[in-house]
Every structure is written in C-alpha cells, then in structure tokens.
C-alpha cells in the first residue's frame, strides 16, 4: 500500500512565485497564452472578476516584449494574443465614438474575463475529477472476475452418402495398393560390384563398361541406377587396385580392364 497519494495534478509544472522569475520564464512552460494570462491574473491574488483586465493586458504585453528582446522565439499563439491585447488596450483607453460599430473595450474585456474564468473553472473541474475515488485507485472492481465460459458445441454434419463414400473410397484404395505394387529396382553398390567383378573376370583387355552392362541397360527404367551404381562400384574397385579405368575425353566411353598384378 503506497502512502504517497498520486497528487501529480497539483505538482505539475511548478509556477514561478515572484514577478522577477516570470520575466525569465520560458514561454513553453505555459499551456498557451490564455494559461499565461490566467497565471498572471492569479498572481494578483484576487477574484478573477475583480482583476483589472487593463493591467493584465499591460503585464502580458510587457512580458512578451521582454522575451522578444532576449531574442527568444515566441510561438505565434502568444503573438496573436499580444496583438489582440494591444487592440483591447487601445479600445479601453480611447473613448468610444458614437459611430463606432466595433465592440466596445468593456465588452472585449468582459469576453477575456469570461474566457479566463471558464478556463479556470475547467481546471478546477479537472482537479476535482482526478481526485474523485477513481476505479483502480480508491474503488475496486472484482479482483478475480469469473468470466462467462462459452462452450462451443460442434454440431457435426455428415450425411449417409458422405459416410458410404468415405468407406467405399477406403476399401478401393486398399485394393489398388494390393494389386498394383509399384516396384522400383535399385542396384545397390554391393550388387553392382558383384556383377561387375563377375563380368570383367580376368579380362585384361580394355572393354567399355557399357558393353559389359549391355543386358542390364536394355530396360529404360533401370538404366540410370545401373550406370550410377556400377560406375561407383568400378571406382571402388580401382581404389582397391583390382581394375583400371580409362576415358579418352569427357563423355567418351569408359573402358575397364583387370589390373595386371606384379610378377604375372
């Protein structure tokens, strides 16, 4: 349980207490010109209704002037407000001519006062709202809610036709695999080696490998496996010093013969 209340609303940007500080304040510290004006009015420590709008306008204009003299960039909002306040000031100071259709200085001042009061009122309201017993801060919902469980019950759809088709399909599949076995002959290296050794026998003549294998190469399905396996087997025999291989050029026929052993 934390004992520091989250009083962040009141503690956000600390306001400058003295007149001196205001002049050095970065305009960006305020939430716009209205906020700055409200702050200045508040510092007069009187009811907003009793604030001298003329004095406020003069203070604002002086502030903006100071800031600009320091070559600090001032946001356009603040300059617009300054212009409006300069106009307000002039309307307040110069008596209104009877022919004047423009709003009177008093009316403009009342409007500004209204806006300041409204902003302050909204701020107070926000402050009151945030200090209400908020859900999850002072008031709690059920900590362990019991969610509604949705049971998705599947209604399975299947017709007798689907069922029979599935059954017949399976039985036929079973039959096909029983009666037409797909058999693929693969010459193992062991087989190829035995056949090759038998065919070459003791022949010391250069004879092409294909000639030896002619019988086996007749079947197109087996040609690749026969060639690959017997070639690999022949290399193995060469490595063991039992036969010799010769090829005149790339893709030329491969000739093979029994290797002559020493002393023969």
């Amino acid at each position: 349980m934390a004992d520091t209340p989250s009083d962040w609303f009141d503690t956000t940007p600390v306001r400058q207490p003295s007149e001196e500080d205001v002049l050095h304040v970065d305009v960006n510290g305020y939430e716009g010109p209205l906020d700055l004006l409200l702050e200045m009015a508040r510092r007069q420590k009187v009811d907003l209704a009793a604030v001298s709008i003329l004095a406020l306008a003069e203070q604002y204009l002086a502030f903006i002037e100071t800031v600009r003299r320091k070559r600090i960039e001032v946001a356009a909002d603040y300059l617009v407000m300054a212009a409006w306040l300069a106009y307000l000031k002039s309307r307040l100071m110069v008596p209104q001519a009877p022919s004047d259709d423009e709003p009177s200085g008093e009316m403009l001042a009342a409007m500004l006062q209204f806006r300041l009061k409204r902003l302050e009122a909204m701020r107070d309201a926000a402050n009151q709202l945030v200090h209400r017993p908020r859900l999850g801060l002072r008031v709690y919902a059920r900590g362990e809610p019991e969610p509604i469980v949705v049971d998705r019950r599947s209604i399975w759809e299947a017709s007798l036709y689907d069922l029979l088709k599935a059954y017949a399909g399976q039985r036929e599949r079973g039959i096909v695999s029983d009666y037409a076995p797909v058999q693929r002959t693969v010459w193992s290296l062991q087989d190829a080696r035995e056949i090759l050794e038998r065919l070459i026998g003791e022949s010391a003549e250069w004879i092409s490998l294909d000639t030896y294998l002619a019988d086996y190469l007749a079947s197109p399905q087996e040609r690749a496996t026969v060639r690959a396996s017997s070639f690999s087997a022949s290399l193995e025999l060469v490595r063991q010093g039992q036969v010799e291989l010769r090829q005149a050029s790339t893709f030329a026929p491969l000739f093979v013969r029994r290797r002559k052993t020493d002393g023969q």
Partner: protein
Amino acid sequence: MADEYGEHREVAERNLRILEALLFASAEPLSAAQMAPYLGEGADAAALLAELEQRYASRGVNLVRRGDKWAFRTAEDLGFLLRREEEENRPLSRAALETLAIIAYHQPTTRAEIEEVRGVATGKGTLDLLMEAGWVRMRGRRRTPGRPVTYGTTDAFLDHFGLESLSDLPGLEELKGSGLLSNRLPPDMQIPLPFDGPLREDEDPLDPDDTGGQDVDDEA
C-alpha cells in the same frame, strides 16, 4: 394471499441471487437488458436492481449505477485500505486531463471548441490517449462547415470516475449557474448541459471510416 406473497418473495429472492451472481462475476458494468434474459419470466429487472442496491448500500461492496449499467464496486470509504502498490502506471498529463474535463462538461464538443476553451491547439495525441483509455469517444459530426467530429464521454468514463451519470459531474450546478458552460458571451443565454445521449439535431452519424482519432480538420 400470504402464500401468494411468499411465492412472490421466493421468486424475487431467486432473481436477486441471479443478479448478484452475474454482477459479482463480471468486472465490467452490466445493463439491465444484458441481465434480463437470465431472470425468470416477467421479472422487473429495474426494481430488483434497486432492491439489490439498497441491500448492499451499507456493505463493504456496493452496487453502483454507471450510466445505464450496474456494477459491484468496493465502498468508497474503504479505499484507503485497499490502495494498491501499482497505483497509476501512467498519470494523465495536465493537457489530457483538461481536455477530458472540457469534453465531459461541454459534450458534445468539437476539437475547435476544446481549443477555444483552452486557448491552445490540442495535440492529436491527447485525444487519442483519451480514446485509448476508453473514456472519450467520437459521437458524430457536427452539421457545420467542415463537419467536425463531435466528442463525448463513455460509460467507462463514468465507471472510472465513480459517477452515476453526467449530472454527477462535480460542480456542474454552479458551472451551469455561472454560465461558464456556454460557448460564448453573453452568458445569460440558454446554458447547454453535458449530453451523452443519442445524436443531437446538429450532429450527423460518423462516417464509415471514422474509426480512430481521425478528425477531418486534420486532412484540411
């Protein structure tokens, strides 16, 4: 007669138990309409809820009304006991809080009106954040040039800030009296009250692609 009454009470008790169970089980407020299907035939959900509210009024857990929904919540006066460590992970910025207050008290309101009250442009992130929190919603579009989006608060806003309805907004009566809820001078005009009901005369429904925090003002 006594029997009939007894039977009536028995039915009512059973319905009260059902409401208790439903409302206790849910973390979110529920409307009478949502609960009605679980009650017996011909049950008066509103009257039952009022009775339940009464029964729990003095307990450690109260039945509270939030807009047109109801929820069990811990009693406000016990809050100090229950305060949790976590508190708030991301406190609202001053701008967000002010914007929320303006929307709450002035709804339905547009972004331009919010900016008028604050005297400063509203960052787009501010409205997004409030909508993401579920407290603010886009209601419709004002029937004025540019058709700006109107904003209002949600039931979750009422729930979070512990308000039965918008009329519970703090200081509403005084604000109304002082004319500070009006948009312009002079303040002796008719004072609008915050309104979160269906669309007003001067509001159109949202466009189909108005989903997020978009505002036609932005595209202009």
